């Protein structure tokens, strides 16, 4: 029976779990190595490590998948969770698991139970992270802790707005505050659980400052709960100067808003939007992502595969993706130098935009309430929100160079200077767009920008 004052776990799940002391004792034994150690050594080496996404329904199949991927040399492996478990529909996950595990799009860890989780951790020498997308990740977190995972992804904003329709931010923020609080307790006790924040959000045309503003707010909240190790993920947008600047901004901005007592590891998610279907373009984009990660100083890069546009990758494609990302992040491409003044210019604007977004919120007494109110009023916002609890009245657009700008910043409290720059740059992209199909104007432009890489499909 799992019990910790800081964490409300649903009784049915808690009943199946071992006690807190067993859980912490097991974690302290570091069964599968710790993610934090891997990240620290990546930082020292100045070369990002690679992590794939991977999760299948069956337990035996999941063990086989982890073992199949390990030889490709990832430094962290994932247990990607299925959609039912993410949404807390554990019974539905268990039903499909019983009927046809191959029809689940991830590993239903809660349905499998923590003992099997320990088997996963023990199966490979590479430490594991749970990747999911649960607005309320508490039951899953308790199970993952009991299993001995040393890294857990998610946050009250980034795992709500892109991942469900109608969970109030107050609820998700509260759930994740509890998770962070437990990590804080563990950290105080020397047990470091890496908490990764999903700055990727809805993945498609996410302006860097939107991504970073959200993760900064989550990071401050986590740090206040005692979290000491944060991985902060940013999704590759496609314009390298902007992307490199964004990764660097994660360091400068967390230094500014968190202070030095929290370790921060910038993470690059390789391009998360519509992927090219052609394997050669897809591989090129994966290599490109590795390159961006290294130049941006990311500690980790989460790899895609050349089957991304088609469906969940098989192990072979996933291995290839890990290897291709590794090559892209290697010294083979060490000759690539960027126009540093352009990066610096992007960096300063990202810093400014993030400051304009987060400072009013951080200034408020109750952070969670301020975040909720921000999204309600539109002073915080994300594009393409899956949730009703963000307005999605911002309109992102690529500029002539491919960088993502706010064509319309909706209700965001941007200064006139920020608005002006975004308007000018957004307009610069217009000339490049040829109307797609029978759509016109706004819609054609949006489709064009979404398809930035996926258009590259011809032989």
């Amino acid at each position, binding site marked *: 029976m799992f019990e910790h004052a800081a964490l409300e776990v649903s009784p049915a799940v808690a009943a199946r779990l071992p006690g807190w002391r067993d859980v912490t004792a097991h974690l302290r034994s570091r069964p599968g190595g710790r993610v934090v150690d891997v990240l620290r050594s990546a930082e020292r080496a100045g070369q990002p490590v690679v992590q794939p996404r991977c999760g299948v329904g069956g337990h035996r199949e999941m063990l086989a998948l982890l073992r199949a991927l390990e030889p490709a040399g990832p430094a962290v492996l994932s247990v990607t969770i299925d959609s*039912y478990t993410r949404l807390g529909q554990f019974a539905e996950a268990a039903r499909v698991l019983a009927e046809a595990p191959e029809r689940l799009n991830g590993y239903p860890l809660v349905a499998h139970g923590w003992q099997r989780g320990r088997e996963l951790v023990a199966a490979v020498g590479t430490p594991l992270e749970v990747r999911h997308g649960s607005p309320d990740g508490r039951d899953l977190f308790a199970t993952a802790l009991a299993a001995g995972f040393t890294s857990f992804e998610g946050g009250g904003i980034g795992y709500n707005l892109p991942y469900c329709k109608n969970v109030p931010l107050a609820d998700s923020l509260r759930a994740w505050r509890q998770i962070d609080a437990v990590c804080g307790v563990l950290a105080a006790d020397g047990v470091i659980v890496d908490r990764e924040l999903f700055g990727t959000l*809805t993945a498609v045309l996410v302006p860097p400052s939107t991504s970073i503003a959200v993760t900064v707010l989550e990071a401050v909240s986590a740090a206040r709960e005692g979290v000491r190790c944060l991985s902060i993920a940013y999704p590759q947008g496609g314009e390298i100067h902007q992307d490199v600047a964004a990764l660097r901004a994660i360091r400068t901005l967390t230094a500014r808003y968190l202070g030095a007592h929290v370790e921060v590891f910038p993470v690059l998610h390789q391009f998360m939007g519509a992927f090219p279907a052609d394997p050669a373009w897809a591989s090129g984009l994966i290599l490109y992502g590795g390159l961006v990660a290294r130049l941006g100083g990311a500690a980790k890069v989460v790899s895609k595969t050349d089957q991304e546009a*088609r469906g969940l990758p*098989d192990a072979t494609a996933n291995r290839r993706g890990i290897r291709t990302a590794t090559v892209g992040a290697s010294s083979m491409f060490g000759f690539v130098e960027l126009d540093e003044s352009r990066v610096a210019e992007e960096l300063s604007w990202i810093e400014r935009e993030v400051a304009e977004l987060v400072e009013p919120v951080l200034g408020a007494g109750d952070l969670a309430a301020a975040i909720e109110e921000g999204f309600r009023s539109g002073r915080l916002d994300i594009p393409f929100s*899956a949730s009703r609890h963000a307005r999605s009245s911002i309109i992102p657009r690529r500029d002539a160079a491919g960088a993502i700008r706010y064509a319309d910043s909706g209700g965001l409290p941007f200064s006139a200077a920020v608005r002006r720059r975004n308007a000018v740059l957004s307009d610069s992209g217009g000339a490049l767009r040829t109307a797609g199909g029978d759509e016109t104007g706004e*819609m054609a432009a949006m489709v064009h920008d979404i398809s930035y890489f996926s258009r590259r499909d011809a032989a």
Partner: protein
Amino acid sequence: MITFETARTVILGVAASDAHAVANQLIDRHLRAHGFTVMNLGVCTPLTEFADALDDEPGAEAVLIGSLNGHAYEDLHDLPTLRGRGRLRRPVILGGNLSLGAHKQSADLDRLHRLGVDHILQDVAALVPLLDMLRTARVPVAHGV
């Protein structure tokens, strides 16, 4: 923009376990641009919610469901039951990424047809023509039997 004499309504949404929002929002805009009134139920919409919406909006011509996350079959699992109860008696049009994995089989689509899905589209551009065609050939209660 084209306008129509009579307002045409469709119900749109994303399957129960699926949070992919982008295509949903683009299709919404696309249909509005073609003169449709779109009742967009958004992501993570169980079939019962589609059925309730149709009860609220009996004039809707069709129910458009997107599924990207590979769970189409599981998420539409209860379609026969609902239809058996006389609900969702409107053409169900399905689109997206309809099975798991990178190597698709026609059996994946057959299975969905057997659940009672009336039309499976690969391409959003085929949507309006299909809706026009369905209106011309309209036999409202023929679906899902």
